[in-house]
């Protein structure tokens, strides 16, 4: 069966990662991260407070990262210092969540097409998913 010449190729997110030329792989922090406490691969007993706290932190961080993803492209209301509130469309954050890249930032002195908001300047923000 011939495929039509006009068919578009299925898009891919990226290509499969290849070998790292410098080592044999099997990174210790790689794919087999510890599962729920019933199947621990870490040395401390699953019931230890430290382990549970780590699990909770990981879970919270994941929720936060997902909340950032949910904000992309949406209008967000930022509360800054001195009671200033601005609305902008959220674009992205950097690796350390130190800056937010936003567009159409509505400021008291006009609309800024694109801007970087320093997270240290933000007290809180809200958005509707």
């Amino acid at each position: 069966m011939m495929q039509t010449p006009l068919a578009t190729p299925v898009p891919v997110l990226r290509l499969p990662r290849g070998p790292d030329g410098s080592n044999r792989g099997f990174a210790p922090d790689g794919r087999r991260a510890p599962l729920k406490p019933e199947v621990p691969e870490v040395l401390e007993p699953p019931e230890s407070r430290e382990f549970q706290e780590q699990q909770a932190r990981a879970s919270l961080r994941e929720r936060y990262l997902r909340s950032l993803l949910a904000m992309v492209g949406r209008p967000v209301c930022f509360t800054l210092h001195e009671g200033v509130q601005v609305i902008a469309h959220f674009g992205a954050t950097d690796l350390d969540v130190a800056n937010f890249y936003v567009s159409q930032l509505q400021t008291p002195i006009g609309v800024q097409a694109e801007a970087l908001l320093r997270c240290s300047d933000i007290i809180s923000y809200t958005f509707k998913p």
Partner: protein
Amino acid sequence: MAMRQTPLTCSGHTRPVVDLAFSGITPYGYFLISACKDGKPMLRQGDTGDWIGTFLGHKGAVWGATLNKDATKAATAAADFTAKVWDAVSGDELMTLAHKHIVKTVDFTQDSNYLLTGGQDKLLRIYDLNKPEAEPKEISGHTSGIKKALWCSEDKQILSADDKTVRLWDHATMTEVKSLNFNMSVSSMEYIPEGEILVITYGRSIAFHSAVSLDPIKSFEAPATINSASLHPEKEFLVAGGEDFKLYKYDYNSGEELESYKGHFGPIHCVRFSPDGELYASGSEDGTLRLWQTVVGKTYGLWKCVLPEDSGELAKPKINFPETAEEELEEIASENSDSIYSSTPEVKA
């Protein structure tokens, strides 16, 4: 809108890829191991093809490779007259099993307690992995080099293929139960536990037999010499590849050829469906593995279906957070990966 298959090429090997195997579905997804004439079998994440590690230690071409069900162990068969068992999580070599000739095939039992090996010395060997120092049990009878040996019927029986025969053995008595003879060289064999089906390829034929009685069920002819074929877990499709460098997908019930793909630059030596049936992998003389979608255009793994109004967002926001650890792990892994969204991927298919 018609979509064209985009195969994902996994590079890394420097010589022909002669065997590949998937693990079962584990809480960490499923995995893929590839055997290569460069002596360096590789472990990859099954649904993306991402390289995880390379098992280093063999001193010759690796002819066979397999993973146990939960992908905690790997086994390899090599031209250096050894089979090796590996820890598939750390990549460390666990055991070296000396043979008297080139080893071609390895297979774990379901419980990973035993390893079956076969090779050019025409003997089947069963190793107790809990007693690595003990001598293996040996089954003789083949009159030419063994190409493939597999546990079947819940590890109570063994299927083995040499150049012109396929034989069924009883594990407990170590005796031959039945055999099939062929006029042409048997190129590959696959065992499907659900339904006890045996897939055998020889010449241009793709044949299906009962794994219990060895009675023929049906067979199809391909346009070219076939080196390997695999039946989809739900038995709707089969895929096959061989000397014309092309992959063929057939409807198992009707035998109708549904799709065919060019893409490899050399003969295809091995092809297998993933355990969830969503993709199949092919290994070729050209040194690459390629992953192919069973349903072209479906969003799965690295393939992303883009609808006309979709602007191409990589991460659809999830309102309800998944509760299971498995989902969380898989999603973090895929969403945090470096993503280069490309609408013109490498397309040679």
